[in-house]
């Protein structure tokens, strides 16, 4: 699972836009770009969920 972040303007922060399921970064890139194509993004980045660090857990 990959967390997808994107922004529409360089002066805006990256915002979480959703997730995609893929085995590797290549397919994750294709899926993210085709699923979250509602805007003309200036930047989109993907993070593998297993690399996340839990700061708070309730």
């Amino acid at each position, binding site marked *: 699972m990959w967390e997808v972040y994107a922004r529409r303007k360089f002066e805006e922060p990256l915002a979480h836009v959703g997730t995609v399921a*893929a085995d590797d970064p*290549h397919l994750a*890139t*294709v*899926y993210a*770009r*085709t*699923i979250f194509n509602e805007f003309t993004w200036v930047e989109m980045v993907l993070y593998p969920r297993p690399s996340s660090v839990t700061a708070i857990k309730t």
Partner: protein
Amino acid sequence: MTEAAATDVALADLVAALADNKCFLGRRYAEWCTAAPTLESAVAAAAMAQDEIGHARSFYPLLRDLAGASPETEAETRTAWTNVPFLNVSFRGWTDFVAANFLFDTSVSILLEAATASSFSPLAQRACRILEEEPLHWLHGEGWTRRLADKGQGVRDALIASFGQVGAQSLEWFACSSTDLVSRDVLSRDPEELRSAFRGRVNPVLDAAQLPLI
């Protein structure tokens, strides 16, 4: 037939081949918009179908300019299709989709790369524009090739069968280039050079996945 007239015919045939193959590739991709193995790949199939049909739509007006307006130069009324045979029927399974995506789509891109500096500027303009969208198609085809090659012998066998058929027709399709088109700088590579470039692109992926080379 004069040399110039022969070139015009070869050029019209080339544009027709590009238009028809893009059109049918888009149609076959579209059939998997609701049938792909995952939701993500279904959306990708829909996006690639839209891309391919859009590319086809850019070539038919060019065909009309070259061959003259007739029902045969309109996508809606055309009957003398020149696409590769495997696109005449629906894909038998997802491995056929991946073979078309990874091999045939790439072969069309290899040919378009040979047209980016074409002496026929309308073709060069379209080639440059289309090639901006194709890297995403390559990523999808390459990713699924590696993924399926690692999914057990049954899947590998199906993949090898699909790649065998599509690979052979992709190599054969490069015959739409010709010495005449190359000598007039319409294309920068003849069929053998295109085949060599195609093998150089796809075979490293096939080799890494321990699949038969093209």
